[in-house]
């Protein structure tokens, strides 16, 4: 294709569009850019600028007028010069996130959610907000975009060992208030949870973040150190896994120490330092291992009771 002269006005409109896509700009700022661009090198009048903006609007861009509220900036809130998400694209994205759902760490979950949201928000689809809501309803994890600030605040409170008073929506029971020391946020089965030490509980608890109605920091260094001691007091959980080699063993989670059982070499001894026995119980049950709990006895009787209840269901 033979190259020839280019369309000056169209070029100026394209450059205006590019600058506005980077950030909102005032009339003055736009003219400074026009003046310094080597291919333009001149200012334009307010009327000409409106002429350019109208052309962009006609092609589908949404540009707001400068007002005192937006510091007299031209703000480009939408443009269609990007990709269009089709039904097939959405199905592929669903397959993609469902494929990695089980692999996600807390950090991965946050990044994946951010990326997916940006994929929708940057698309040219006019119904992108609706598509985004629909998409998150159909995948196996919740869209927690409305909890961005809460996530940041809880992370900061965990770092600072800050005691919180939490109003929590307990399923089937209603709102309850707990005083807790938040330990960490974690992702499990599609949701974000706060692992915390409650004042009224010996065990650590999991609170689902989207069920937390309100949390208020409480200034109580004494309670903070008391609850921290409660967390530190947890004994190691010792298990014997039958018929499993070191090579075959897959960690059940948490830091653990594994070695062959000195009394029977085909079995393993596993020592876990867990901060949540409920999660360990779930993972142990799902592992399918044949195992024995050596200590603590409380965990042994708990898991034994669960298994007996499960067994009873199938004998009825």
């Amino acid at each position, binding site marked *: 294709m033979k*190259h020839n002269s280019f369309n000056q006005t169209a070029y100026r409109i394209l450059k205006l569009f590019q600058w506005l896509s980077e950030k909102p700009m005032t009339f003055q700022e736009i003219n400074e850019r026009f003046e310094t661009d080597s291919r333009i090198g001149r200012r334009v009048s307010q009327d000409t600028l409106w002429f350019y903006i109208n052309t962009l609007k006609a092609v589908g861009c949404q540009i707001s007028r400068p007002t005192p509220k937006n510091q007299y900036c031209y703000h480009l809130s939408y443009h269609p010069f990007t990709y269009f998400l089709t039904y097939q694209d959405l199905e592929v994205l669903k*397959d993609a996130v469902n494929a990695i759902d089980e692999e996600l760490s807390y950090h991965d979950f946050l990044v994946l959610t951010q990326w997916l949201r940006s994929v929708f928000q940057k698309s040219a689809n006019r119904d992108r907000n609706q598509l985004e809501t629909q998409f998150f309803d159909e995948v196996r994890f919740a869209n927690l975009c409305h909890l961005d600030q809460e996530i940041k605040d809880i992370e900061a409170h965990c770092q600072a060992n800050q005691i919180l008073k939490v109003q929590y929506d307990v399923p089937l029971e209603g709102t309850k208030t707990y005083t807790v020391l938040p330990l960490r946020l974690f992702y499990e089965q599609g949701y974000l949870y706060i692992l915390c030490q409650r004042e009224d509980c010996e065990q650590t608890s999991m609170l689902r973040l989207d069920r937390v109605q309100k949390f208020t920091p409480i200034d109580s260094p004494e309670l903070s150190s008391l609850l921290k001691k409660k967390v530190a007091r947890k004994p190691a959980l010792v298990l014997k896994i039958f018929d499993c080699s070191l090579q075959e*063993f897959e960690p059940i989670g948490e830091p653990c120490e594994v070695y062959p059982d000195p009394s029977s070499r085909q079995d393993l001894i596993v020592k876990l330092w867990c901060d949540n026995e409920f999660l360990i119980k779930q993972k142990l049950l799902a592992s399918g291992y044949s195992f024995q709990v050596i200590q603590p006895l409380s965990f042994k009787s708990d898991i034994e009771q669960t298994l007996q209840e499960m067994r009873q269901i199938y004998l009825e």
Partner: protein
Amino acid sequence: MELPVFDVTQLEEGLRINVSAYRLLFIYLLLCQAQTLSPSDLNTHLLNHPMVQRTLTVETLNNYIHTLQVFGCDIHNTDGHGQIMLHLKEHPLKYPIPKDHLNIIQLICAQFFQHPLASTYHHFLMLIRRIIPFNQIQEIYQNVSNKIPFEHQLSTADIQLAERFQRYCIDGQVLVFDYEMPDGKSISKMVEPLEITYHRKRLTLVGNDPKTNKKVRLDVERIHHCRQLPNRSRSQAVKTMVTFKLMGRIASNYRPYPGETVVQKGDSLLVKHKTDEVDQLLKRLLRYGATCQVLSPNSARKEMLYMIDRMLNGLLPHNSIESL
């Protein structure tokens, strides 16, 4: 290709615009959404557009394309089966994505790569190509393509073994081998290989047993004297519909897995899950404890009871299960 969404009715009446720039922007829009277009297709779209309703001469089209190139668009002429095509490879409004977003895309690519979902993987890559700049696509390719995604977790010997079995999966021919059972005894097996995955720190061959039509997972390290038969894989694993009931808190929390149908029954949920790997599903259901009950088929209920008893046997003194 369909026209980009244009809502002409939304335009203010008497809006003064630069018609020439408008046409150029429309071409830019078409290229953004189609990526590759022939000049004749482009002219058809222009002719059908209510605000253009005309075609462009070659000179005018050259002028517009050149303006877009000066603006920063990387537009190439490609040869599409004897026809000149305009291909928009890159443009200034496609911004790079953050590094951690790129890592997530790589994680997805790696996961797809582990499964024989070639069309889905291909479509995902095509989607990504439309979303992120070309240099970032190349970065993903370098890290994922032609590599075994779980490579970082494997030794050199394991990688060689994985590559060998991955080739078997691609060939799609029936495999015959000796399989070493946990008790040390060896049995002869015939499997139609499907994929090679890394599960529980072990390389696992997933395939169909042509005799039972059931999906099997085999530890690659226990496979000896493996050879390919000349016949190609033909059978398909039989899928079983497992129905289970969820009660209590899990019923209010549960987010269905792909393909599951869920019916609310009072405070509980009735879930139907069709799978060719019943064992894997049952292991997941064990995690829900006594708040989950497998209702059908009977074989799955029996298997569930067997797994529960196996765990209780480890926990309780010998023979105590019989006394329960």
